[in-house]
């Protein structure tokens, strides 16, 4: 099976024009197989990119990309549920489910399960495959020992989150607004100030986490280049890149070069670091360790 790259949805609140231009460039230049669009974190952001949605999807499709609509991850009221319901019921787009309620809408037709749905074991993955899921991006916290077993469930393609700030938690409370002493209802969309999230430090001023509206993310950037060979051997078919405000076309190019063994992982990581000055990498989850750790390939185990 050919290894495929997917570009996850933009999780941050980028200015609408930047969001549009990002995807238009991806359509023209990025060597990825699937591209995810859609607001996953906060329903209040949805109206901003809506005017550009059709054009972006059209351009991505014409460029031969598989386009997937990623749904909202945390639905707390019926208005949001209804909106999602409508979008997904249209049927024209493949949906990535990030809230299990959508299964009732898209179940039975081919869909994708996003990394914010809890898949920890074979029973859950097989059940979801039977409901029509064709691909599942596993939760970023899963260790290789679990991925190994899940990738052996043959009736569904397994995807692993391999690049970007990792989603760690969600809340009904907006931490971005809270950090600015605002209430969520009058948030002034302050999350738009931070294209890669707002850094959270410990009291001794060490970078610790990042907040993105109602979402808490890793401060570190996931980098699984060094584990591609192992993941491929396990049967993982898809590798997800989660957008950050760097040159994602270049990131995708690097990931493809490592996947195709045109450059080795060490070289890939060195070039990736050049694209992301000051960024700290992590791969601890895959190795059954604290997610923020970055361990060498021979430290695999635990």
């Amino acid at each position, binding site marked *: 099976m050919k290894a495929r790259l997917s570009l996850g949805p933009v999780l941050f609140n980028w200015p609408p024009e930047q969001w549009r231009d990002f995807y238009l460039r991806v359509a023209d230049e990025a060597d990825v197989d699937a591209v995810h669009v859609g607001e996953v974190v906060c329903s209040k952001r949805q109206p901003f990119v809506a005017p550009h949605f059709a054009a972006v999807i059209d351009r991505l499709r014409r460029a031969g990309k598989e386009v997937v609509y990623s749904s909202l991850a945390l639905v707390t009221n019926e208005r949001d*549920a209804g909106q999602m319901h409508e979008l997904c019921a249209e049927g024209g787009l493949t949906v990535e489910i990030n809230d299990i309620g959508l299964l*009732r809408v898209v179940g039975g037709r081919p869909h994708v399960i996003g990394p914010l749905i809890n898949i920890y*074991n074979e029973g*859950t993955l097989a059940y979801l495959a039977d409901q029509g899921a064709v691909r599942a991006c596993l939760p970023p916290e899963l260790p290789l020992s679990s991925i190994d077993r899940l990738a052996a469930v043959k009736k569904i393609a397994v995807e692993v989150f391999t690049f970007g700030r990792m989603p760690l938690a969600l809340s009904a*409370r907006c*931490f971005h607004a809270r950090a600015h002493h605002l209430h969520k209802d009058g948030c002034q969309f302050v999350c738009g100030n931070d294209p890669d999230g707002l850094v959270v430090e410990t009291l001794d001023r060490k970078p610790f986490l990042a907040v993105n509206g109602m979402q*808490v993310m890793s401060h570190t950037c996931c980098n699984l280049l060094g584990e591609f060979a192992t993941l491929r051997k396990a049967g993982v078919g898809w590798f997800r890149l989660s957008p950050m405000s760097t040159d994602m076309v270049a990131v995708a190019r690097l990931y493809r070069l490592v996947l195709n063994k045109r450059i080795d992982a060490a070289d890939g990581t060195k070039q990736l670091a050049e694209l992301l000055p000051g960024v700290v990498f992590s791969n601890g989850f895959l190795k059954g360790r604290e997610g923020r750790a970055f361990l060498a390939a021979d430290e695999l185990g635990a």
Partner: protein
Amino acid sequence: MELVCPAGNPAALRAAVEAGADSAYVGFRDETNARNFPGLNFSPEELREGIGLAHAGGCKVYVAINTFPRAGAEDIWRRAVANAAEFGADAVILADIGLLEYTARRFPKLRIHLSVQAGASHAEAIAFYAEAFGVRRVVLPRMLTVADIAALNRAITVETETFAYSIMCPMAEGRCALSAYVTGESANAAGVCSPTSQVRYDREGDVVVTRLGGSIINRFGPDETAGYPTLCKGRFVVNGVAGYLFEEPASLNTVAILKDLKAAGVTALKIEGRQRGRAFIANAVASFRALLDALERGQDLPTAAIQNLDQTAEGRRVSAGAYERRWR
């Protein structure tokens, strides 16, 4: 409303039954439940006896098997369900889709409650669990306002249970990897958040510094009580300013909104705290019993019970949390 009480061990279960719990929830002493703390929970034999004792006292027992089974180890969780069924548990509280599917198929007569860890926060999600697995009751995430809950109850056919007292959790339950990110232990899979083994309290002059996995979670002056360093309850720095970014160190107390929760159609009220001792259980359960009895009779809520619950919060600020919209 039904009063659902925590029982972290046989003594606490006895205390809950004696104090007037309608039902108690318990877990096995292993990774199958979300309070997998050292010295807590029930061996299979203890649970068999405990269920007998509770039933004799007119109290139901729900068994929480609400972590997410590890790939390759699903049998451990399935055995827990089989044991709960065999011992005569009144319900199992589950979160994992694979385990729900297994339980509905193998034990069609066993009542299933959906754990808060499943994070079912709206009607569509709840309908999925009800239709697919026959779930009869949903424990609601601690993120809905009273108005949300009322709307929800109008839209669904299953019972709702909601948290009434004790700790607050600012994150969507069952969807939080913060502790795993810092300590390497997944709360979802292992049932422990901010594990004790990675906690440190260091005295630095007259200040106490708490750490989790080596990272500073909080710093307490001489006038402050050093709280346990649960990650989301810590003090952090954003834009150069230190503060409680995620959640203030407050206790959840719904006494002031009990009438509203009843009017919103809530079936059962849950006291959190399987990790708490027998004295806490006895006091909290007896107080809520008195409050709910008065509520049912349409009487004024007894002041003594209200004061009791305030005191148990140990001087911490008390809050109605996400039940009030301003929390967001």
